[in-house]
């Protein structure tokens, strides 16, 4: 029974990621786009963990850890660029 719930939540998270992508497309300021990309990266992290549970591939969890780190570094770099106009 929990497998059906996990499949349903995977489809739900994919649809929600596309809705966030709409905000990243129309967002008036650049900060809106950074927020939307940050939320999408969290959603994809959770989606990879759910896929690891569904397909019994335990190595997907390591992929998820790396994806979480990549999303955080992306957000920090783009925010610093927005704040100062340069990275360092």
């Amino acid at each position, binding site marked *: *029974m*929990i497998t059906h*719930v*996990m499949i349903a*939540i995977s489809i*739900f*998270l994919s649809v*929600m990621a596309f*809705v*966030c992508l*709409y*905000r990243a497309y129309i967002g008036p*300021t650049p*900060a*809106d786009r*950074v*927020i*939307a990309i*940050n*939320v999408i990266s*969290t*959603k994809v*992290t*959770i989606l990879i*963990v*759910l896929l*690891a*549970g569904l397909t019994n591939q*335990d190595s997907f*969890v*390591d992929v*998820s*850890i790396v994806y*979480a*780190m990549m999303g*955080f570094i992306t*957000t*920090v770099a783009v*925010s*610093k660029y*927005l*704040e100062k106009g340069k990275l360092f």
Partner: protein
Amino acid sequence: MNIALEIIAILFLLGGAFFFLVGTMGLIRMPDVFCRMHATTKCDTLGAGMILVGLMIFYGFSVITLKLLLILIFIWLTNPTAAHIIAKAEYKKEWLTKKEED
């Protein structure tokens, strides 16, 4: 896996999905950058945390549970930091443009 643990795990997963829905609605409907950030930070910490706790109950005691705990601690450390950095960048930019108008 007995039926009680399965029901608890399903409740945690559905709660996490509910918080993701709330965060996405806030991201679409709110009028301002800071209001949108307020909604999406809830979605990140509570939604991701509840889904990961549900999956930890699903896996039981194993190495995968420790890795999921690592992801949970990492998300709980880094998402408020990222939100604070975005808010600081946007606030400083608005402040600078307002000072140039005066």
